Structure formats: structure tokens, C-alpha cells
């Protein structure tokens, strides 16, 4: 069954977040059980792995495409390898991790469906966070500006963006159904990084959520309202 995270807890923690840790990362961290083994795909500068190690005592590993990101992570003592989510997940054995996390990276993968399938092969659970292309601000930019949207979070022009597979919350739920994964938890953040009301309907999330975080597990599709 789908349950959503209690939003006020997350915000309270975000307020105390060391060094102003990003709310979406804290949301992801909240979904991870203490002491578990985690693979962070597209781990960037290692911020999430650091949060997970400090707050959740996880045994964390990372994959990062950019050389600079990897070297920064390794210099911080994180177990990170240079690699590509699209091509390198295949080398990881089944059930190697408790969680495989894809934080703000799904839209930059070439084959999002295969990536998602690999994630749930490698890990018992997967956590995916992504920018919601169904957000009203983006809809308005296309409708009235007539151009590909750019936002503070997505500042790239269409011709130089690494983000080649944008989706909406509704699209992602559809993908989960196609792949046949169970959605265990989900949350959406509005433009100010504030989680949307738990009881709000999906269409509301899809319109007002700027980002979404999903906790997924193996199994048949869940009965989402």
C-alpha cells in the first residue's frame, strides 16, 4: 500500500540540516533504514552519501558520471566509482544492496526504464527523485512562452541540457506500472521545497509538485488511488 511521508517531520529536520542540506536529499535519507547497504547512482559530489552515512549509518557506495564529482567523492573518503548508469549497472550482481538510489538523475539517463529495472534487480528497494515536468510553472512556460522551459532547478537550454528524458509524476507512475514495481511511499515538494499535503490528490501533486520522491520495491503494481 502506498503511504506518504509525514511532511512536518521532514521540514523540521531540514531546518536543522547541517550546512543547509537539501530538503530532497533529507527526504530520500528518511526513506532509508538505518545500517542498510546503499548504492547511490549519480551521486554527484557525494552530499547524499555523506548525509546517509551521518544520519542513517549506511554502508554507502556511489556511481558518478562526471570525473570531477568522482574525484571529489573519493577524496572525501566515499566509495565512489566513475561510471554510467546506462551502461554500468549491468555489472552489479543481483541483491547486492538494500537500496539503490537515483537522486535527480532519472531524467538524464538514456534508458530510464532499463535503469529502473536494474535498480530493482540490484537492490531490494529503489528510491527515485526527479523534477516534475508537470509542474504548473513549466506548463505555463510552454503554454504562454511557447519555448522549452528553464527554471532555477533546471537552468539548461534545450540544446545543451543533460536532461533528455523529462517526465511528470503521472508519467513516472505509469512507468512503475509498466515495469511492475510497487510504490511504497511517495512525496512531492512544492517550489519552495515544502512537501505537499499528504492527502492531496495525485493531480494536485502533478500540478504543484516541483520535485517528487518515490520509494519502490519489487512486486506487482500497487493500487494507487
Amino acid at each position, binding site marked *: 500500500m502506498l503511504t506518504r511521508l509525514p511532511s512536518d517531520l521532514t521540514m523540521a529536520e531540514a531546518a536543522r540540516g547541517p550546512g543547509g542540506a537539501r530538503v530532497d536529499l533529507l527526504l530520500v535519507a528518511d526513506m532509508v533504514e538505518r545500517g542498510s547497504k546503499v548504492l547511490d547512482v549519480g551521486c554527484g559530489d557525494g552530499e547524499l552519501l555523506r548525509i546517509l552515512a551521518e544520519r542513517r549509518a549506511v554502508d554507502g557506495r556511489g556511481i558518478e558520471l562526471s570525473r570531477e564529482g568522482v574525484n571529489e567523492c573519493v577524496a572525501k573518503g566515499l566509495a*565512489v566509482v566513475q561510471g554510467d548508469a546506462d551502461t554500468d549497472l549491468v*555489472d552489479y*550482481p543481483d541483491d547486492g544492496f538494500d537500496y539503490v538510489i537515483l537522486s535527480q538523475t532519472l531524467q538524464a539517463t538514456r534508458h530510464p526504464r532499463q535503469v529502473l529495472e536494474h535498480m530493482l534487480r540490484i537492490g531490494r528497494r529503489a528510491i527515485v527523485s526527479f523534477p516534475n515536468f508537470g509542474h504548473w510553472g513549466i506548463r505555463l512556460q510552454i503554454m504562454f512562452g511557447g519555448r522549452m522551459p528553464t527554471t532555477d532547478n533546471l537552468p539548461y537550454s534545450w540544446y545543451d541540457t543533460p536532461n533528455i528524458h523529462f517526465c511528470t509524476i503521472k508519467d513516472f507512475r505509469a512507468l512503475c506500472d509498466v515495469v511492475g514495481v510497487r510504490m511504497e511511499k511517495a512525496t512531492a515538494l512544492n517550489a519552495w521545497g515544502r512537501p505537499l499535503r499528504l492527502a492531496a490528490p495525485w493531480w494536485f501533486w502533478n500540478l504543484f509538485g516541483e520535485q517528487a520522491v518515490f520509494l519502490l520495491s519489487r512486486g506487482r503494481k500497487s493500487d494507487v488511488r
Partner: protein
Amino acid sequence: MAEANLTVVRDATARAREADSPHSPVVRFAPDQPLQLDAGVELAPFQIAYQTYGTLDAARANAVLICHALTGDQHVANIHPVTGKPGWWETMVGPGRPIDTDRYFVICPNVLGACMGTTGPSSTNPATGKPWGLDFPVTTVRDMVRAQAMLLDHLGIESLFAVAGGSLGGMQVLQWTASYPQRVFAALPIATGTRHSAQNIAFHEVGRQAVMADPDWRGGRYLLEGTNPRRGLAVARMGAHITYLSDAALHRKFGRKFQDRSNPTFSFDADFEVESYLRHQGSSFVERFDANSYLYLTRAMDYFDLAADYDGVLARAFKNTPTRFCVISFTSDWLFPTSESRAIVHTLNAAGARVSFAEITTDKGHDAFLLDEPELFAIVRGFLDAAGKARGLNGGR
């Protein structure tokens, strides 16, 4: 400490003396402590020369083994007794350096088959009282590591905090983690691979043929006959040295510049700076290195194929490994390209090992691991800091 005791001896016979009586501590293994070689024979007696830096802590938990490369030796961070030059990895190893001798007890043994005090072809064969020459058994990377394990047993070090090395040194690191996984807490294989490629074997063969084509080589008996295959070994070194650099680095350093002249001489003088540089590399190398050792050590690298020891399945070499790895490669290294390191990383991932992997952008080629590469230092320091915390080492910063 070691630095103060070393006096530089620069004369023609200095190197020859190093083979039996080096300017390093030596552990001699008696005839009843033979080294079992992959070639199927026993080596006994034999000796290992080594250098140490720093202090072993009370728990004997902070030992770091440095494995040197083909033409390196145990003089990692002190003045070299033959050349008078600084140690080959002083940028990496020393007080406050990434491999910090204020925190770690660093050991570097001269490898088996080399010529700086560990038994090799230029050492005296106790059976004849003469240099071994080609009677010395062909040794492998696994033999080197087996010998190092005997050294550590002798020093009373059961478990290593870390093993680090580049190139042939990196091969030894990988062999350590495969042969003695429980003795290695952290491993740093740098600019290396799990096997020597056909291209690398080919380069080595050219070098060996250059040595053996020198009439002064005398079928390997030059030490007995009072000659030295300088020209052959120098040519071998010149050829090999090109493989340690990159086209971009050679272009940046030398381009097509002339050496001490503004026009070509229309002769075969070293008109170009790059020629002069290579000739210098060749001639200085022969002053400190033994030609037969060059044959033996290149052979050991050629024979290295870690997967072959495990029925061709590399993953078996690292099955259930408890070691944490930091694999490092360099973008312009064409001798051990990044793809070799990536293969190691894939295997370690498949084995569920805790592995970090960084590729460093540089135009300095294979030799980059020996040079001033700030990113390399930051990565090694960060990796060892984190590993030290995990091992509960004291003296963390």
C-alpha cells in the same frame, strides 16, 4: 631516520655492491626457510632489502606496504644511495604527505629479482660464489608477494593497513589482495591492470632483445666477464620510457625543438631535444640498474595474469574480499589505460567489494603516478583517512 644513515656512494661499482650488501636493512632467510617459486623450484637462501619510515603503533595496525615499479626500488622517500637523488615517491610518502609517515609505518621492500639488495640475478649464488646471472630462476609477481609476506612475518606484522603501488607495484597490490585478502585492510592499485596486455608484452620483448643483442651482455654472464651491456639496456630504457609518457606530454615538453642548435646538422647526432632527453634517460638508467634484472622483472610483468590463477574468472580472485579498494588511472596512460582499471572495478563491484575508482585527467601518461598530481594526492589522502577511521587508527586529523 633512514635518510641520516645513508651516505651516497657514486662510483662504478656502487650498484654492484648494492646487490649483496645494500644500504638498507636486510632480512636473510636461511636455507631451511625456502621461497617456493611458481617456476616449481625453491629459492634458498635468499634475502630481502627494505626501507621503513615512521613508527609501528602498539597495535601493529598502521603498517603500509609500498610496492615499487619495474625500475623502482625500496628507496621511496630517502636519498638514493647510488644516484644521490631524492626518493622516487617523496611527493606521496613522508611526514604530512598523503601516505603520512607521522601516522603510518611505511615499509618498502626491493622486489625479488631486482638489483638493490633483494636476491636477484646480480646477487651472489651461494652454490657457486658467483653472480646468479641467467641461472637465477624466473620469478613472478606472485613470487614477489610471497617473499614480501615472509618479510612481514619476520617483522611481526600480521595485517597491513594498506598496500599501495603503481604499474608493477599495482600488480603486486592486486596479487596481495588475492593471495592474502585477510592481511590487507585497504588497497591502492594505481595505473595497473590484472594482466599484461599483448602490446605491453611486445614492448618488453623489444627491450629484452635490445639487451641481449648487446655483445657486452655475454649471454647474461657480463658480471663474470667484467663487461656491462650499457648500450642494450639504454636502448631498452629509451624505448620503454616513451611508453611511460604520452604524445601530448612529449609535444608539450619538446615539440620539434632542436638541442643546442638552430638548424639540423644533417647527421645522426641528437639534433632534437627529445632525442637528447631519451639518450640521457638511457645512459643514467644503466648506472643504477642491472641488465639481467631488467629481463627478469619485465618477464614477471609479462607473466602476470591474475584471472589465470582462478580458472580465468577474475571475480574468484576477489570473492568475499574484505579489503576496501581505491583504483586509480590516468587519462593519458596508454600502457595501462583506464579500461584496464575499469575492468578491475567491474570485477570488484560484482564481488560486492567496497571500491572507489577515480580517473585523473593529465597528459603525463603512465608516469603520472610518480609525478606531482594534486588530484592524486587528494584522493589517496582522503581514501586513507576514511580507511584509517574505519580501522580505528589513532592520530587521525
